[in-house]
């Protein structure tokens, strides 16, 4: 058996396998890039939606804070006025 021939065949096979692996690896890289891009795009869309929602919530919170600063003092003012009315009614009845 010719050792050289066996060796040469082995080298040729190894080169062939390595080349196939390179092609596969390259395919996988392309697939990964595509998938990564899609994932990234998806997440960014989601993030954008959430950010929009966050902005809207912030606006609502601002309006909420604004109305709170008006509503609560006015509510207590109304109660105060009712108490004052109650006092007048008592004084009148006496």
């Amino acid at each position: 058996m010719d050792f050289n021939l066996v060796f040469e065949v082995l080298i040729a096979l190894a080169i062939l396998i390595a080349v196939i692996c390179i092609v596969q690896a390259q395919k996988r890289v392309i697939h990964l890039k595509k998938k990564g891009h899609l994932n990234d795009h998806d997440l960014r869309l989601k993030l954008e939606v959430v950010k929009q929602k966050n902005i809207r919530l912030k606006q609502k919170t601002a309006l909420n804070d604004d109305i709170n600063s008006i509503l609560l003092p006015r509510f207590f003012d109304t109660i105060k006025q009712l108490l004052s009315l109650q006092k007048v009614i008592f004084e009148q009845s006496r």
Partner: protein
Amino acid sequence: MSKAGKFYSFSTYIYRSNQPYQPKNRNKQMKRKFLSLTFLLLITYCFPQDNSKIIDSLKKVIYNKPSDSVKIKAYGDLCWYYRTISVDSAFKYGNLALKLSKETNNRVGEAQAYNDLGIIHYGLAHYHESLSHYRKSLKIRTALNDTIGIAALYNKIGLIHQNTFKLDSAIFYATKALKIYEEKNHTRYVAYIKTNIANIYRGLKQYKKALDTHLEIAEVNKQINDNLGLTRTYNNIANAYLFLKDTAQSETYYLKSIDLAEKHNYKKELATLYNNYGGILHDMQEYDKAIDYNTKALKLRKELNDNYGITSTSLHLAGLYIDLKDFSKAKNYLYTGLNQSEKFNINELKMDAYDKLASYYAYKRIPDSVMYYKALFKSLNDSIYSSRITKEVAEIQEKYDTAEREKEIQTQRAEIAEKELNLSRKNTQIIGLVVLTVVLIILGYLLYNQQKLKNRQLQKENELKQALAEIETHNKLQEQRLRISRDLHDNIGAQLTFIISSIENLQYGFKITNDKLKGKLTDISDFTKETIYELRDTIWAMNKSEITLDDLQARISNFIDKANVSATDLGFNVTIDEALSKTLVFTSVKGMNIYRIIQEAVNNAIKHAEASNIDVQIQKKNDSVVFLIKDDGSGFDIHEIEAGNGFNNMKKRTANIKAEIVYNSIKDKGTEIILSLQHDH
């Protein structure tokens, strides 16, 4: 006297093959000298016999102090032309040419000088010195790749070997020279070399072959009109016929040759021809004529300083005198011939001398001497011919060895081929391994890259997810807070509605006559309603993600409608600039703040300024949206009113939406409030 004892001089060719020189100095003087020298050389070839005139001209050239290269050439030519006149002068100029060539590193001149000195030594039968000079010249010409010069030297070396009876070497060098001349197509020189080869055939006793060659050469000489060559060839043909025992033909050619030589005054050739023709006359037993021709030959040869020729002719004369039984004269010539042949180691002539001496002593009846010279003759003859036999045996041995060597070479070649094949396979394997390594490196790089890409994508994804989660958490928190707030607002709203409803029930259920009480109830009801409206406005804004100009106009109109309830004679007008886009939108916070500012301004106009007309204009100015609220109320003093709660609120809201507000108010003339807001596209 045996025929083998006779020695005939054959014409052989010896020539200079001097190189044409190229003067480097281009000034006029040098050109003149060069032309004069070229002319001299031309003369030299046209009239070879007029040497003394040429020598004078060459000396004149040297006297004019030419360049080194011209001087070397002139010395060389002087050496050449002196060789037939004065050997000492020839040596002097030859050595001068050699010295100057060495000093100026003129390799061509050096080779020529060695060549010329070799020729002079050859002429003096100093074969050893001649060979040494030729070899030195050959070495230089080989280095200079001067093939014609090399061929000339091969011819001359061959002649030395021929003269020392080393015929194998002679034919070897002659063949080498012939090959070069044939390649270069030099007909004249091819004829010269063939003549020398024919002479070697003669030496090897192949007379027919030699004759055929000479006859062929004679035709060539005639074609190229070479008289000197033809003279020599006729001499050689005559000699060949002589050896083939055709005396009549031989005599005819000798006489033809002598005629030509006398006509053209070829002294050297004449000497040879006289000598040879003398030999024939000797054979024809015409002794007096033979002595006459040989004496003429000897005289000429002495004139030419031709040692070989002197020896040969002396031995011829000795033979003649032996036959004439004039032993005293014979002895003189015999010993002259013997001494000369021994001195110059000319084996051929030495043998002739021994043979003739043996004959001489036989006539003198001295057997010891006869035996002695016969023994010497035999010994020399044996040594010459045995060396030839030894050489032939050696040649056969060489041939056998060559066959063996060839076999060995074949084996080695096969081994080398196998090794080369192995080497080529190893190379292929190495290349394969290198390719595999490269491919593996590429694969490794790709896998590494793939992993790196994966990690980068994961990291990016994680970052985005984290940000998403953070914002979502924040959003959830805010939503929770908003829900709590909404619950609170709903509770307060319900309670306020209950209060309003209860007060209205009181007002309409009981006939309240007390004005103070009635007033208080109305105040509480209005205050609570206002609070409820404000809450509703805010809830309206909170339910919208953005507020358009139309929304704003509708809300303001709604507010004015309510305001009109308390001031029925109020004139209210809202104008929106057509240049403003209908798609112009504000965020709910901004829209709410604008609405509140306009609401505050209208409220102030109605409640404090008691205006009867309020005009709200929304305009576009450059990149800004301007809200102008104009009334015809009582106006106010800006310094007095500034501390009020309403103005402070307006200012605060203006700052919140990063806008500018300007108050223009004149007492009893009205108020103008301008809100400028940067237009966001």
